[in-house]
């Protein structure tokens, strides 16, 4: 049981490390590419900005959920 828990913890730590690298790359990309455009949109077209904001956060949720699920499956499969 203890061995199993240690194994789960190790897999989880690796998942977290891989995920962190992916996320850091992702948010620097997003901040650089979208930053100025979103700033102008927020200042000039509030209604469009509101729609874009909700689409971005929902889209990111779906994409990141898929990424984390795939990552969990891939790493757990490899360590079994």
């Amino acid at each position, binding site marked *: 049981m203890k061995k199993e828990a240690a194994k789960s913890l190790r897999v989880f730590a690796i998942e977290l490390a891989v995920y962190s690298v992916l*996320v850091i790359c*992702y948010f620097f990309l997003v901040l650089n590419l979208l930053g100025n455009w979103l700033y102008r949109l*927020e200042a000039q077209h509030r209604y469009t900005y509101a729609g874009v*904001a909700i689409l971005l956060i929902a889209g*990111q949720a779906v994409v990141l959920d898929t990424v984390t699920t795939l990552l969990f499956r891939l790493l757990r499969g490899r360590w079994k």
Partner: protein
Amino acid sequence: MFFPISHAHINPIYLAVVGFVIGILGGFFGVGGSFIAGPALRLMGVDWNYAVGTDLAHIVGKSIVAAKQHRALGNVDLKLGFIMAFGTIAGAECGAQLIQALKRAGNVNIVVSYVAIVVYFGIAVFMLWESRKTLRSVRGRSQRGLVKGAKSKKDHSAFSPVTRNIQRLKIWPMITLPTSGIRISFWTILVVAFVGGVFSGFLGGGAGYIRMPSMVYVLGIPTHLAVGTDLFEIVISASYGTISHAIKGNVDILIALVMHTGAAIGAQIGAVATQYFAGPKIRLAFVPLPLIGAAIVIYTLLTGHKL
């Protein structure tokens, strides 16, 4: 890093870590974690109106992931969630209008800070009292052989007599919720949702810290279902709140996107963890969280906001 929309300088790693922590809390307790996220943004010098709106946006993303997890575990009452969304949306709009009025008056930061402290303390004290009383009564019944062992997953609450009286209120139309196993007035559900919505629009987040206890103690929903249903309902109501606040100029979506990167993985861990704990223990573990939020708000008030 500079976030031009809210004019704030914040380290993105700090935002991702805050997101990760509140992701775990959200998945486990069914709350958006705004009592941590709001004060954490204030700590970095973000104005309350941006903290409220941005937190709502980040919660939409996080709740989509957590609600999906809870749905897979059978912890969501869809019928209840859809009914509650109506009341929450109306309440959230009232809360957002209050924020606008305070913004125009120029005292949004001070008023929201004081309200947040009172609300966070009140919730912590009430949940501490209730969950300890419930755990003691369950232990007593277990010793007398009325409950099969202390590890029983059946949900108990010291507030049950009040809940039963509320469920007996026969105000038409009465709604049957087979998933939750109760029959209750439509208006009771709507009032609970509306009050939660006002707090959501005013203090930010999904106001799960108000709605989740209300669902358990007032409506009598089992804790595991309250957690999942609350998250599902938050997806709908927080989406509305985000749009409303974005139109009013209170959302920095860049901050929300960065925070959500951490929340996505944290929510998955939290949702799985609920399967290993009984209702009163989840509620007891919840107690320190609003207190941490209150402590951060007091700190920002005393020190002038920044670390």
